[in-house]
C-alpha cells in the first residue's frame, strides 16, 4: 500500500485479513466460553440423571416405601432409608442448633466488637477453620474429641441433663454427639463469615439512628441489625445445613455405624452420606449398589432443595435491599 496524499484526511482502513480475523476471533471466543458455561449446566444435569439412572433398579423395586422403611439387611436384600434419614436429620439439626447462635455471635463480634486491628486477623483465623480437610477433622474427632466426649462430656451431660431423652443412654466414644460436634465445627466458619458480611452491610445510618435514641449496642443489634439481616442469616443457616447433610467422610469416621432410630445422642448411628462412604467397597449385589445410590438420590434431592432455597432467599434479599434504600 503506497502512501497517497488525500484531500480528505482519513485513517487507513484495516487490512482485510485482520478484519476477518477479528470477527472470527470474537465469534470463536464467544462460542468457546459459551460452550464452557453450557458444559457446566450439562454437567449438573448429567449428575442428577446419572444418580437416578443408577438408583433406578432400587427405585422401581422398592418404590417410595424405601424412604419409610428401617433396616439395611444385605443378606435378604431388604433396604430402607428411614434410619439414615433419622440420623441425618438428628445430627444436622442438632449441629445447626449449636452452630446458629455461635455463628451469629461470631459474626457480631467480628463486625461490631473486635478491635479494628485484630478484626481481619481473627476473621481469617475463623475462615481457616473451614480450610481444615474434613478427613483430618474426622481423625481428630475419632482419636481426640471422641474419647473426651465418651469419658467426660457425655457422663457429665447424663448426670445433669439425663432426664432429656437426647442425653439418655450410656456414653460412647463414637456416636451421634461426636458427629454433631464435628459438624458444628465444620458449619460455624461458613455461616459465621456469611453473617459477618451481612452485618457489615447494615447501613451505618440505621445503626446510628438506633444509638441516637439512647439504645445500647446490644439493643441496636436486636432492634436493627438482626431484623435487617434476617433473611440473609436464614439463608446462611440453610447453606450450613446443606453442608452438614452432605458431609460424608468426617461423619463416617466418628459416628460409629450404628442403626435404628433413637432419641439419644450417645448411641452410634449413621447418616445418608456416611452410609455411602462406609459401603464404598462393600457392595456386592447389583440391587445393593442401586439401593446405596438411592440413598445418594435422596441426599441429592435434599441438598438441591436446601441450596436452591438458600440461593433464592439471597437473591430476593439483595433485591429487597436495593428496593428498600
Amino acid at each position, binding site marked *: 500500500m503506497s502512501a497517497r496524499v488525500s484531500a480528505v484526511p482519513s485513517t487507513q482502513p*484495516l487490512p482485510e485479513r485482520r478484519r476477518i480475523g*477479528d470477527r472470527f*476471533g*470474537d465469534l470463536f*471466543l464467544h462460542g*468457546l*466460553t459459551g*460452550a*464452557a*458455561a453450557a458444559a*457446566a*449446566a450439562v*454437567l*449438573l444435569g*448429567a*449428575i442428577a440423571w*446419572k444418580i437416578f439412572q*443408577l438408583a433406578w433398579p432400587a427405585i422401581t423395586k422398592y418404590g417410595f416405601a424405601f424412604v419409610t422403611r428401617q433396616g439395611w439387611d444385605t443378606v435378604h436384600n431388604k433396604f430402607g432409608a428411614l434410619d439414615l434419614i433419622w440420623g441425618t436429620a438428628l445430627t444436622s439439626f442438632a449441629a445447626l442448633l449449636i452452630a446458629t*447462635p*455461635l455463628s451469629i*455471635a*461470631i459474626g*457480631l*463480634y*467480628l463486625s461490631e466488637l*473486635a478491635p479494628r486491628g485484630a478484626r481481619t486477623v481473627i476473621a*481469617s*483465623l*475463623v475462615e*481457616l*477453620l473451614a*480450610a*481444615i*480437610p*474434613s*478427613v*483430618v477433622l474426622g*481423625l481428630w474427632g475419632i482419636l481426640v474429641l471422641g474419647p473426651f466426649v465418651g469419658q467426660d462430656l457425655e457422663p457429665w451431660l447424663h448426670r445433669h441433663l439425663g432426664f432429656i431423652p437426647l442425653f439418655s443412654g450410656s456414653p460412647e466414644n463414637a456416636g451421634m454427639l461426636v458427629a454433631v460436634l464435628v459438624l458444628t*465445627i465444620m458449619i*460455624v466458619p461458613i455461616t459465621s463469615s456469611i453473617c459477618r458480611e451481612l452485618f457489615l452491610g447494615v447501613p451505618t445510618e440505621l445503626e446510628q439512628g438506633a444509638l441516637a435514641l439512647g439504645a445500647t*449496642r*446490644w439493643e441496636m*443489634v436486636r432492634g436493627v441489625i438482626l431484623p435487617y439481616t434476617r433473611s440473609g442469616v436464614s439463608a446462611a443457616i440453610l447453606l450450613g445445613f*446443606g453442608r452438614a447433610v*452432605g458431609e*460424608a*467422610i468426617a461423619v463416617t469416621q466418628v459416628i460409629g455405624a450404628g442403626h435404628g432410630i433413637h432419641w439419644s445422642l450417645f448411641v452410634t448411628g449413621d447418616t445418608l*452420606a456416611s452410609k*455411602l*462412604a462406609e459401603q*464404598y*467397597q462393600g457392595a456386592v449385589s447389583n440391587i445393593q449398589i442401586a439401593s446405596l*445410590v438411592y440413598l*445418594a438420590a435422596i*441426599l*441429592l434431592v435434599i*441438598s438441591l432443595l*436446601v441450596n436452591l432455597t*438458600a*440461593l433464592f432467599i439471597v437473591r430476593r434479599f439483595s433485591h429487597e435491599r436495593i428496593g428498600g434504600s
Partner: protein
Amino acid sequence: MAVDAGRYSLTLSRRTRRRKGVNVLMQALATLAALAAVAVLALVIISVARRGASALSWDFFTKNAATFGQSGGGVANALVGSLVIVGLATAMAVPVGILIALYVSEFAPPRVGDLVRLVLDVLNGLPSIIIGIFVYGLLVIGSGQAAWKGSFALAIIMLPLVARATQEVLALVPSTLREGALALGASRWRTVLGVVLPTSFGGIITGTVLAVARAAGETAPLLFTTSIAANAVTWDPRQPVLSIPYDIFVLSESPDPADHARAWALGFVLICFVLVTSLSARLLLVRYRKRLEG
C-alpha cells in the same frame, strides 16, 4: 452548680444500669464465641502437629507403605498419588473455569449470566460424595478405577471455585481499561485476552490455589474412583493410585495405634499444605484487590 438531678441527670439510672449489664453480658458472649472458634482451630492444629510431626522423616516421604499385615513404612505412593490426582484435576478445572468466568463477565446477557452463576453455586453446594458416585457411574462401572477418574471428580469440585473466584476478579477490572482497549480499535477478543485476562492474572492464580487447597483434602470423591490401588509409586494416571486423604481415612478407621501414628503424620502433612496454601492465597488476594481497587 445547681443541676436538676431528675430531669437532666446523665449518670446511670437503675434501669439503664440493667440495660448496660445485658449489653456487657452479650458482648462478652460474642467475644467468647469468637475465642472458642479460634481455640478450636488452635486445638486441632496443635493436636495434629504434636502427634504427627515426630513421625516425619526422610524415609516417611520416600518409602512406600509396608506390605499388607505389617505396619510402618513411608507414604511415597500416597504422596505421588495425591500429586497426580490433584495436578490433573487442576489442569482440567482451571481452563474451563476461566472460560466460564470470561463468558459470564464479558459475553453473557445478564439473565444468562445469572443462570450460569446459579448453576455454579448449585454445583458448589453438592455433597462431594454425590460427585464421587456420579463419576463412578459415568466412568468407573465397567472399566475400573483410575487416577484420572478421581481427578475428574475433583475437577468438578474445583470448577465452581475457580470460576467464581475468576469472575469476581474480572468484575474488579475497571471498565475504563476495557473501553480504553476497545477505543484503540482493538477487537473484543484481543481486548479480553490481551488486557482483561492479564490484569486479573494474580486473582486467578489465588483463586486456583484456594481450589487446589480444597481439592487436596477431599476424600469422598476418591472413594469410588481411585481407592483400590497397588502399594507402589506410580505416575501413570491410567492406574488407580492412593492419595493422602484417602490413606488418612483408612488408617483412622484401623484399630492399630501404629496406623494412627501414620494417620497423624499424614494429617500433619495435609494440614500444613492446606493452611500454607490457603493462607498465602488469601494474603495475595488481599494485596491484589487493594492494587486493583486502588
